[in-house]
């Protein structure tokens, strides 16, 4: 078949295209992923009982702000990286900002506390639950994000996968925060930050396999 015939075939009765569909689909996917993650966290783990206290509420807000910052940045980059050539001119180092902020805050809070408290502040009561829950809750948001990103045709699969993992990890951390009763900045930095990084690495590793189009 001649290429010219193919061109004719493709141009006959052409339909207009919705140019904003990529960003909208990705936002929608993350929204749907958040609902699933919230549901899983609420049903599977339950909201923390002491949420009415100011202290608990303040830490919930802090955890949510950290996770929101990550999801927001991840979304901005993901809508670029999902497109062919989107990796061009998209330096993504800004994405370490939320991590940097939380690590600095954690360091300050450790410096202000007596060293006998450090272990408790870092390890908390439920580090293992956090380490397991965030990646598990992230699975569905991750699957949905990868599916929509793949349909958009990324050309840097590892990076697009990494950002899908980052967004899913952030969404999952938001959902898990409603349950988590470990209230210390070092805990958030190590276990929230660490598991989100883990989700990102998993996304980068799976991207080249799952995002091929």
């Amino acid at each position, binding site marked *: *078949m*001649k*290429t*010219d*015939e*193919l*061109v*004719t*075939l*493709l*141009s*006959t*009765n*052409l*339909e*207009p*295209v*919705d*140019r904003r*569909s*990529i960003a909208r689909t990705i936002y929608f996917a993350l929204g749907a992923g958040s609902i699933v993650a919230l549901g899983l966290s609420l049903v599977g783990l339950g909201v923390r009982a002491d949420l009415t206290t100011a202290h608990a509420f303040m830490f919930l807000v802090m955890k949510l702000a950290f996770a929101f910052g990550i999801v927001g940045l991840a979304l901005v980059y993901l809508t670029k990286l*999902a*497109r*062919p*050539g*989107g990796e*061009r001119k998209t330096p993504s180092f800004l994405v370490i900002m939320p991590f940097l902020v939380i690590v600095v805050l954690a360091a300050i809070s450790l410096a202000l506390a007596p060293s006998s408290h450090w272990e408790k502040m870092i390890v908390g009561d439920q580090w293992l639950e956090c380490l397991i829950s965030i990646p598990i809750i992230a699975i569905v948001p991750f699957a949905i994000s990868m599916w929509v990103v793949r349909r*958009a*045709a990324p*050309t840097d699969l590892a990076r697009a996968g990494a950002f899908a993992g980052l967004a899913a990890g952030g969404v999952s951390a938001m959902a898990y925060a409603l349950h988590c009763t470990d209230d210390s900045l070092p805990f958030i930095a190590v276990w929230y930050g660490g598991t989100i990084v883990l989700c990102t690495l998993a996304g980068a590793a799976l991207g080249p396999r799952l995002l*091929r189009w």
Partner: protein
Amino acid sequence: MTIDETGLKSLMLAGLDGDAASHRALLGQLSGRLRAYYRGKLARIGRGAVEAEDLVQEAILAIHLKRHTYDPAEPLTPWVHAIARYKLIDFLRRTRTSVADVPIDEADNIAAHDDNVDAESTFDVRRLMERLPKNMRCSIEAVKLDGLSIAEAAKRCGISEPGVKMSIHRGLKTLAAMIARETQA
């Protein structure tokens, strides 16, 4: 040797709005540039013009099917180049040639002369289409080959108008996948 970014971009934008003539002109011009690009790349690893033509058609199909991913705020050339390069790497992986054998260069090198418009690829779309499910085949034949309107196609194929549109979209995607499989050496 410079690619006409402004001209191609305006064709692309008109095509996105549904202007068939612009879309046709765009794909026509791009196929010439892609041909030169792929022939240059494949010649270096001792592959022939037929394989280059397969790749041109794969890239043209991808450009058509993925045109909703083009962000009008960005220049068109890098977007086209990213697709062309992705398809090349995909092809080399399928045909088990080390990517390291092929120098991949920067965005502006797609621009080149088109010398042989009559080249044919190894596959025949009409033959491939026989393998499509009935609704997809009927819709593509009616609308894309015979030039019927969506409404006429819906009547001919016995499905709804949205059904025709969806069948065309899915059918072209399936065809693209078949072509990719077909060109596995």
